[in-house]
């Protein structure tokens, strides 16, 4: 059992507060660190990885401080966001160098490359790799010593869907093995698909924490706004307002559209097409008007 504990941690750069009095414990399993860009995710991960000192508070691994303690890296594997990684080496040379720095050898390097399925390109220079291949070699370098904690900063950035699925599968497996896996992302769907536990940070503050389903319910239960255009807006509005899943409908004459506020997301999405069909109304546009991540987050912060 290995867990990272963040205790009343703040971090500021000059007069900018990047992380504001955050406390959380990251334990075994896959945890998603979710937040919009600039929320302080990288700052938190850098502090957990020992590359940044907290301005106040403590960051510990099973009670041992992480800052200025290189022995901690026997237990932690890090997949940084930045791309640079000794591009003049081949994938194999790179992973092997990482193994050697842990006091390990060629066998461990080969095993790590097999885990990320990069053996086929291991003898090519890293400078010729695609972004997804780089990401996998970075993973291999972090896994070479079988760490109990794995920290990944925006690992899915720039990956194509297939690579994304492979990496998710790998991280899920590591979580199931009882390792502590923490990854940051600003994309809700990634976190939803992978994490069993999530921590949400917004503007440097710890906005929500817990089981994903609970937070997802918070997110889906919030009022949703839709912009709908149809062949008969007024008839559609009359039929919809009769149902308790809608809280308000505005006929926007200038736009030629309906602005609908739905309170029961699940029920409304089933209701709309059914009502339209029953009344012989054609739906021309159905678009959520506040699905931006920021609005989801701001709702969470308020909740």
């Amino acid at each position, binding site marked *: 059992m290995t867990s990272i504990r963040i205790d009343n941690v703040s971090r500021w750069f000059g007069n900018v507060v990047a992380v504001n009095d955050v406390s959380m414990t990251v334990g075994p399993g896959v945890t998603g660190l979710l937040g919009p860009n600039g929320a302080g995710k990288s*700052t938190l991960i850098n502090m957990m990885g020992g590359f940044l000192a907290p301005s106040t508070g403590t960051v510990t691994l099973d009670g041992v401080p992480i800052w200025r303690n*290189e*022995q901690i890296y026997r237990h932690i594997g890090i997949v940084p*966001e930045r791309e*640079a990684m*000794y591009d003049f080496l081949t994938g194999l040379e790179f992973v092997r160098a990482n193994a*050697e*720095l842990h006091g390990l050898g060629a066998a461990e390097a080969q095993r790590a490359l097999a885990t990320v399925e990069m053996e086929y390109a291991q003898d090519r220079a890293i400078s010729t790799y695609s972004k997804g291949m780089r990401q996998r070699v970075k993973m291999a370098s972090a896994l070479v010593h079988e760490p109990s904690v794995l920290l990944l900063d925006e690992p899915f950035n720039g990956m194509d869907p297939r690579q994304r699925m492979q990496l998710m599968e790998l991280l899920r497996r590591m979580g199931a093995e009882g390792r502590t896996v923490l990854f940051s992302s600003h994309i809700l769907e990634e976190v939803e698909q992978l994490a069993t536990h999530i921590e949400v940070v917004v503007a440097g503050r710890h906005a929500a924490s817990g089981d994903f389903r609970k937070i997802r319910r918070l997110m889906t239960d919030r009022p949703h706004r839709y912009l709908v255009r149809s062949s008969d807006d007024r008839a559609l509005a009359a039929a919809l307002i009769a149902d308790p899943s809608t809280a308000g409908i505005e006929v926007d004459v200038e736009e030629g559209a309906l602005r609908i506020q739905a309170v029961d997301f699940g029920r409304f999405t089933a209701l709309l097409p059914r009502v339209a069909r029953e009344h012989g109304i054609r739906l021309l546009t159905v678009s959520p008007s506040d699905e931006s991540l920021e609005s989801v987050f701001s709702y969470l912060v308020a909740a």
Partner: protein
Amino acid sequence: MYNATVARLTYRGLLGRRRAFILFGLPALLIAVSVVIRILVGADDGTAGSVLGGFALATMVPLIGVVAGTGAIGPEIDDGSVVYLLSKPVKRPTIIFTKLVVAIAVTVVFSAVPTLIAGFVLNGNSQQIAVAYAVAAAVASVAYSAVFLLMGTLTRHAVVAGLVYALVWESLFGSLVPGARTLSVQQWSLALAQRIGAEGAVSSDVGLPTALVLLAGVTVAATWFAGQKLRSLTLAGEE
């Protein structure tokens, strides 16, 4: 204290990047100039002294030192790849010491050795001039490597800072303000050359004991400080 893997990565980084051209170019220039002078002027101790002292020791050694010293760590800190060295259970001072050894080796090979060759080409080591300047270059390589390695950990503009020190402080200030010469790696190493060369062949503004103490002190202090600096190296995110 020495980590072979760190050394291998550092060597490949230093000799593989574009800046390696400077490492090969300057010594080649020195030897070419020496060959031309020998053919045109013939063997002359005075000319040999001014080429080795004026170009080799005053310009080439510090430049190679800047390239090797800052290049041994600066680019890795700059592009973030140093993460892969730092996220390992390897003591940070060990990383610095290893990189220092590599920087010294590269500087000696690309500056002291060519100085020796150029000296033999110029006057066949008459009055021990070739050996004296080569030893001075080797000793200066150690101190320059340590100082510029430290600069590499301190600032993103280590190359510029190194060039300013090497060219403005040592060359310009040293020729205008006599006192500045006491605080010059070049003068300290010349003190050693003065001892090795024949009477009056080489001269320095600093006495040998002072020079040796300062050389050793600067090297040790810079290396220690760089190690401490690396222990608390902060990596800023891309945000």
